C-alpha cells in the first residue's frame, strides 16, 4: 500500500525507531478513561439550554417549572452568574465571552441556561421546561457586509462599540511589495474563501467538576489540550487559588484544536459543583459540539501574485477578511491576531510580500484558530499554493515546473522570508523530486493528455508546504501573558527505572510511547523502563499544552534536555564509583565508562542505585539523579513536504474521486516512524474532508447548516485512497535531536493539493478557481462557470 524508504534506525526498544504503542493495550480492551467514563459518587449531570436564534435580545427567562422538576438540583442563568461576577469570561484573544447570555444571544447555539439534575435524561427534560422570551434581531451573517454602514452591531456589550470591527493587522513591506508589483510582467489576482470548518473530534467536549467544600480543592476532569493553561485561567476567571485547582486531562478522544479553549460548559460544570456541593458532569452532544465550540478558518482572501513572464515569482500580496464570530476567541500567540498567516510566502524565494488582515464580528460561534492549522498556516499554505497554480494557469506552465523554478534552494538556509520568518533548514527540490518520482509525474501527465482527448476529466494537483511550528520563543510568543516554554521533570528510581513528567497532553499522538523513546535514546535505558506521566496538573510541570504541532519541538526538546541533565549527574556519580575524574569518562549509550577501558563502566541502573546509596560523592553533589528543566525554544521549526493528488472528476455529476495521494514529508528526525506515518495518514484524510466535503454554511437567519454528521460530512474509509508516503530527513539545526514536528503537516498541506487537482481536472472547461468544499454540486456549478459562495445558503 505505502512506499516507505527504510532508514537505518533502532528498533524503538532502546530509543528511536518503530515500536508498538504503550497506549494501545488499554484502548483495544475498552479500558481507556475518557471524560465521560469518569463516574464519581453522588455525581450530578448538567445540560445547557441554547439559543435557537443567531441574534436576539433576551426579554425574560422563566426557570420556575424547571426548578420544580423533582430530579433537578439547580438551574443557573446569566443572572445567577452575574451575582458571582462569572457571567463573562476572558477569551484567549483578550476579548470576553458570555458564559451564559445576559443581555442578548449572539449566535445560534449560544449558552443561555444550565440545568443540574440527577441524571442526564432529567437534565435534558428540564431544559424543555425553561421559558425564554426572545426579541429577534437582524443578524450579521455575511462577513463581507459586517462593516457596512448600518450593519447590526454584534457586540454592543462593549462600551462605545458602534461597528463590528475587531482588528487590523499587517505584515511584510507594503512599499517594497507595491514596487515589485508595479514592475512585474504578470500580475494575477484571485479571490478565495477558506470556509468555516470544524475539527469534530470523535469525542465531544466535556467536563466533570468536583469541588471539595471541606478542603476547598477543585478537581476538574476535562477534555483539554492545555491543562496547565486552563488551570491558570480558571484561577484568574473564578478567583480561585491556583494551588487548589487540579486539572486532569484523561484520555482524550481526538483534539485537533477543538480542545484548546475553555468553553462555557466547562465553567458551568464548575459553577454547578460549587452550587450543589456535588460533582457535576457535563458532556456536550454532537450538535452542540459542531454549533458552539471552536470552528476553524473562515478566511475571505484576495491573493495577488506578481511574476516575470517566464515564471519567476517576485511577490505576493494578500488582503484578508477574517470572520471571527461573535466573540474573538481565537487561540494564538498574543502578538499575532492572524496567527502565523504571514508565513504565506510559502516555500518560494520572493523579493517582497505583504498582507493585511481585518477581523470582524458576526453572529456565528466564536473560534477561528483550531483544527490542526498550526495557527492559520493552513490558510497561508492554501493561499500561496492556489496562487501558484493560478499563475501557472495564466502562464500556461506546468505546475511542477513553476514550483521547481521558484523553490528555495538548500544553500539559502537559514532563510529569512519576506515577512520575517527564519526558516531553519530544508532541501525542497529533493523533496518535490521524490514526490514526483513516486507519483510517476510525467506518466500521469501523459495519461491526462490522453484522457482529455477523450473528454475525461483527470487532474493532478501539487502542494508544496512549509510549516512554522513549535511555538515558541518566550520573547515573542505567549497566550494571555503565559510564555510558551515547557517544563519537564525526569525521576530516576534507584533501580534505574524512569518517570518522565510532561506538561503536554496526548490526544492520540502517542506521547506515552514517543516521549519514553526520547528518554531511552538519550539515556540508553529500555523504552519499556520509562513511564510518561501527563495530563494532570498536580503531577506535572507547567507548560502550554499540545497544539500547533508543538509537543515534539518544545516538550520533546525539554524531554531530551532534562535527560541530558540526568546523564550529566550520572557522570559525576559514576566517576565516584569508578574512582576516576569525571573528565576521564566517556558515554556509551547507557553507560559511563573509563575512556580506553571499556570494561570499566557502569550502567545507568548501577549508577542510579549508587546515587541513592551511601556512596561518598564530591563536595556539593546532592545525590540522586532526578532533574527538571524548562525549554524555551530559540526559534520555530519548519517542517515541509510535497504532496501530489490525482483525481478523476465525473463530468455528469461533479463527483470527485481521489484516486491517489502521494505525500513526502520532511519533519526532521523521526522518533517513531510508525507514529509519524499515522499522523500523516490522519491529516491527509482531514485534507480530503476539507477540500471536498466539510464546510459549515449559514442561512440568511444565521442558522448553522452543519449541525450534525448528517449535514457536516466527514470522510469515511470509502472517500480515502490508500495513502502513498515517502520521506526526506533534514534535521532542525536548533532542536536538541533535530526533530521538527509532524502533527499538523498533512492537514496544513493537503487541502491545496486536492483543490489544485480538481481545478487541474476542470482546466479544459476554463475553470481557474472554485471555493471549497468541492462537493459534487460545487464542482458541477464550477464546470458551468457558476461556482457557489460556500459560506452562505441564501434562499
Amino acid at each position, binding site marked *: *500500500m505505502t512506499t516507505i524508504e527504510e532508514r537505518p534506525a533502532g528498533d*524503538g*526498544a532502546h530509543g528511536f525507531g518503530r*515500536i*508498538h*504503542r*504503550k*497506549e*494501545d*493495550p*488499554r*484502548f*483495544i*480492551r*475498552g479500558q*481507556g478513561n*475518557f471524560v*465521560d*467514563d469518569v*463516574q464519581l459518587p453522588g455525581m450530578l449531570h448538567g445540560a445547557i439550554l441554547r439559543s435557537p436564534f443567531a441574534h436576539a435580545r433576551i426579554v425574560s427567562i422563566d426557570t420556575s417549572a424547571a426548578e420544580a422538576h423533582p430530579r433537578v438540583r439547580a438551574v443557573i442563568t446569566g443572572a445567577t452568574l452575574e451575582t458571582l461576577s462569572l457571567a463573562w469570561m476572558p477569551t484567549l484573544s483578550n476579548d470576553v465571552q458570555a458564559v451564559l447570555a445576559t443581555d442578548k444571544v449572539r449566535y445560534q447555539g449560544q449558552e443561555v441556561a444550565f440545568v443540574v439534575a440527577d*441524571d*442526564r*435524561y432529567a437534565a435534558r427534560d428540564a431544559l424543555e421546561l425553561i421559558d425564554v422570551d426572545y426579541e429577534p434581531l437582524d443578524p450579521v451573517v455575511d462577513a463581507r457586509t459586517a462593516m457596512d454602514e448600518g450593519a447590526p452591531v454584534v457586540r454592543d456589550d462593549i462600551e462605545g462599540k458602534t461597528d463590528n470591527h475587531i482588528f487590523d493587522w499587517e505584515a511584510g513591506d507594503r512599499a517594497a511589495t507595491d514596487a515589485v508589483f508595479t514592475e512585474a510582467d504578470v500580475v494575477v489576482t484571485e479571490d478565495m474563501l477558506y470556509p468555516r470548518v470544524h475539527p*469534530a*473530534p*470523535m*469525542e*465531544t467536549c466535556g467536563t466533570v467538576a468536583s469541588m471539595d467544600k471541606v478542603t476547598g480543592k477543585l478537581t476538574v476532569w476535562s477534555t483539554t489540550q492545555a491543562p496547565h493553561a486552563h488551570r491558570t485561567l480558571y484561577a484568574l476567571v473564578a478567583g480561585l487559588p491556583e494551588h487548589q485547582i487540579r486539572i486532569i486531562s484523561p*484520555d482524550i*478522544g*481526538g483534539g*485537533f484544536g477543538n480542545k484548546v479553549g475553555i468553553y462555557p460548559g466547562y465553567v458551568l460544570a464548575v459553577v454547578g459543583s460549587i452550587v450543589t456541593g456535588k460533582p457535576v458532569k457535563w458532556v456536550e*452532544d*454532537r*450538535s452542540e459540539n459542531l454549533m458552539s465550540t471552536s470552528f476553524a478558518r473562515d478566511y475571505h482572501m484576495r491573493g495577488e501574485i506578481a511574476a516575470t513572464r517566464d515564471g519567476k515569482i517576485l511577490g505576493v500580496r494578500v488582503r484578508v477578511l477574517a470572520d471571527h464570530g461573535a466573540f474573538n476567541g481565537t487561540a494564538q500567540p498574543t502578538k499575532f491576531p492572524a496567527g502565523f498567516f504571514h508565513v504565506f510566502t510559502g516555500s518560494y524565494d520572493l523579493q517582497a510580500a505583504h498582507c493585511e488582515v481585518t477581523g470582524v464580528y458576526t453572529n456565528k460561534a466564536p473560534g477561528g484558530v483550531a483544527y490542526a492549522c498550526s495557527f492559520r498556516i493552513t490558510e497561508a499554505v492554501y493561499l500561496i499554493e492556489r496562487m501558484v497554480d493560478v499563475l501557472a494557469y495564466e502562464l500556461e506552465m506546468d505546475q511542477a515546473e513553476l514550483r521547481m523554478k521558484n523553490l528555495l534552494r538548500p544553500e539559502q538556509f537559514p532563510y529569512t522570508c519576506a515577512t520575517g520568518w527564519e526558516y531553519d533548514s530544508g532541501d525542497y527540490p529533493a523533496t518535490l523530486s521524490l514526490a514526483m518520482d513516486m507519483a510517476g509525474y510525467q506518466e500521469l501527465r501523459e495519461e491526462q493528455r490522453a484522457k482529455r482527448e477523450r473528454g475525461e476529466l483527470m487532474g493532478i494537483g501539487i502542494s508544496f508546504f512549509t510549516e512554522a511550528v513549535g511555538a515558541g520563543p518566550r520573547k515573542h510568543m505567549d497566550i494571555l501573558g503565559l510564555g510558551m516554554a515547557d517544563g519537564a521533570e525526569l525521576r530516576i528510581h534507584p533501580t534505574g527505572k524512569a518517570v518522565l513528567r510532561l506538561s503536554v497532553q496526548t*490526544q*492520540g*499522538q*502517542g506521547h506515552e510511547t514517543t516521549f519514553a523513546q526520547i528518554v531511552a535514546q538519550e539515556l540508553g535505558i*529500555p523504552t*519499556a523502563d520509562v513511564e510518561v506521566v501527563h495530563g494532570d496538573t498536580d503531577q506535572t510541570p507547567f507548560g502550554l499544552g499540545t497544539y500547533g504541532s508543538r509537543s515534539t519541538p518544545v516538550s520533546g526538546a525539554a524531554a531530551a534536555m532534562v535527560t541530558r541533565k540526568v546523564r550529566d549527574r550520572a557522570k559525576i556519580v559514576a566517576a565516584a564509583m569508578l574512582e576516576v575524574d569525571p573528565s576521564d569518562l566517556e558515554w556509551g549509550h547507557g553507560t559511563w565508562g573509563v575512556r580506553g577501558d571499556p570494561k570499566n563502566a557502569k550502567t545507568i541502573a548501577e549508577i542510579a542505585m549508587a546515587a541513592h546509596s551511601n556512596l561518598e560523592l564530591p563536595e556539593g553533589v546532592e545525590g540522586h539523579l532526578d532533574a527538571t528543566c524548562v525549554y524555551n525554544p530559540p526559534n520555530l521549526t519548519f517542517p515541509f513536504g510535497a504532496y501530489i493528488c490525482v483525481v478523476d472528476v465525473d463530468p455528469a455529476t461533479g463527483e470527485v474521486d481521489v484516486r491517489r495521494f502521494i505525500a513526502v514529508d520532511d519533519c526532521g528526525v523521526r522518533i517513531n516512524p510508525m*507514529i509519524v*506515518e*499515522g499522523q500523516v*495518514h*490522519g*491529516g*491527509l*484524510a*482531514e485534507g480530503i474532508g476539507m477540500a471536498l466535503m466539510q464546510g459549515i454554511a449559514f442561512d440568511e437567519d444565521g442558522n448553522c447548516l452543519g449541525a*450534525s*454528521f*448528517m449535514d457536516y460530512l*466527514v470522510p*469515511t*474509509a*470509502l472517500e*480515502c485512497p*490508500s*495513502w502513498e508516503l515517502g520521506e526526506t530527513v533534514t534535521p532542525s539545526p536548533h532542536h536538541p535531536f533535530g526533530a521538527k514536528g509532524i502533527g499538523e503537516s498533512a492537514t496544513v498541506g493537503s487541502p491545496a493539493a486536492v483543490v489544485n487537482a480538481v481545478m487541474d481536472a476542470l482546466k479544459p472547461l476554463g475553470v481557474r478557481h472554485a471555493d471549497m468544499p468541492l462537493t459534487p454540486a460545487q464542482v458541477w456549478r464550477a464546470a458551468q462557470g457558476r461556482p457557489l459562495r460556500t459560506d452562505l445558503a441564501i434562499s
Partner: protein
Amino acid sequence: MMITVTVNGERHSHDVEPRLLLVHFLRDVVGLTGTHWGCDTSNCGACVVWLDDTPVKSCTALAVMADGRTVRTVEGLERDGELDPVQRGFMECHGLQCGFCTPGMMMTSRWLLDRNPDPSEEEIREALSGQLCRCTGYENIVRSVRWAAENPADDSTEASQEVSPS
C-alpha cells in the same frame, strides 16, 4: 421497566426507563465504558456493539430492545485472557490513535471476519463505511483488519502468544 440483558455472557437485570438508550444502559447502568458515544445520529459508529449476532449502533437502539437478548461489547472481544486477532491487529498495525472509535471499529471488523475471513481492502472499507475515524485516515485500520484475517486465532501457536508493546 424490568429488563434482562446478557452482556458478554453475564446476565444483567435492571429496572430502566423505556427511553434509555442501549449505549447509556451499557455505560451508565452496566458500567462498561468501552463502548463510546459520538454523534446521536447513527453516523459515527463509535457505539457499535453486537445485539445477538448483528452490529448495531447502540446510540439509536433502546435498552428495552435488548431485553432477553445478548449483547457483545469490546470488553467481550478478549476470550479467556486471549486477545481477539482483531485487537492484536489494531496494535500490530497502529490501527488506533486516540482510541475513541476503536471499540466500534473492532466490533464491526470481527463481524466482517466471521462472515468473510479473507476480505479484500475494498470489502473492508465498505464494511467500515458506517463508522468514522478522525485520526488514522483509515489506512492502518484497513491493514489491521487484514492482519487479523491473516492471523486467525485458531491458526497457530503464534496466535496464542500475548502481544506485548515492545
